[in-house]
């Protein structure tokens, strides 16, 4: 569990997870695009994510594809959020989403 928190405590690594959430199963080349960082830097971050179990890989041909594995985050959720607060937490995050969407559509209307 330490490894999961350590892996998440970095904006580049969170950005990599965001990209996999958007589009799962990407190669290193696809992931390093638009990141202001060397290929080696991206590899290092991916390795930290892999060691924490947040990213899994599968070979396809000569390429290694990266997949977001949300299971370790689910385990953290089930340990602290699940038992007591899930209805509250989901109601609050829905409220946040609704309000932010309202704001966004107001912005659009302007």
């Amino acid at each position: 569990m330490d490894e999961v928190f350590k892996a998440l405590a970095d904006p580049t690594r969170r950005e990599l997870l965001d990209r996999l959430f958007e589009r799962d199963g990407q190669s290193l080349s696809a992931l390093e695009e638009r990141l202001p960082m060397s290929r080696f830097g991206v590899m290092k971050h991916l390795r930290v994510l892999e060691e924490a179990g947040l990213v899994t890989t599968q070979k396809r041909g000569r390429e290694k594809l990266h997949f977001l594995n949300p299971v370790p985050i689910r385990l953290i959720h089930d340990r602290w959020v699940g038992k007591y607060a899930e209805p509250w937490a989901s109601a609050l995050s829905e409220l946040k989403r609704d309000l932010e969407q309202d704001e966004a559509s107001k912005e659009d209307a302007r």
Partner: protein
Amino acid sequence: MNEEQPYTVVGGRGAMTVFEIYIKTTPERLWEAITSEEMRKRYSFGVGTVSDWTEGSEYKAAVPGVVEIAGGRNLEVDPPRRLVQSFTALWSEQVRGEGESRVTWEIEPVGSSCRLRVTHDQLGEDANNELYGGWPMILSGLKTLLETGENLDTPGSLRYSGAAG
């Protein structure tokens, strides 16, 4: 974004998703937990899966008389290491429209634990995320059951338990 990526993972989270979990147990106990109707109920929203687990046989996941969840065939059965199943979701009109996909369970011993990898692929483009969205909760409950002998009791994790008989 590079539009010429030489692979076919597209749409939503992708036409293929992979979930991995480490569980402190033996491959045999893990295999049993996947293929036993009673154990399955305890970590799959209360839904049991019934099959004779031979290659080519059918399986059905349901709460009899209440709801049908999924069905398909066992394409490869290699206990206690590998199970490949065709998968058709049945729990709503919407997911039924998604057609057949494939679920592969792979068990790999690692030290005194097992790595379980569930690959859900052959999903359609922009597949409804309900199809694969339940896996993290199911796998978390499976880990809890095998490591502690208890049910995970987060809201939703036992949704259908007690719904029938």
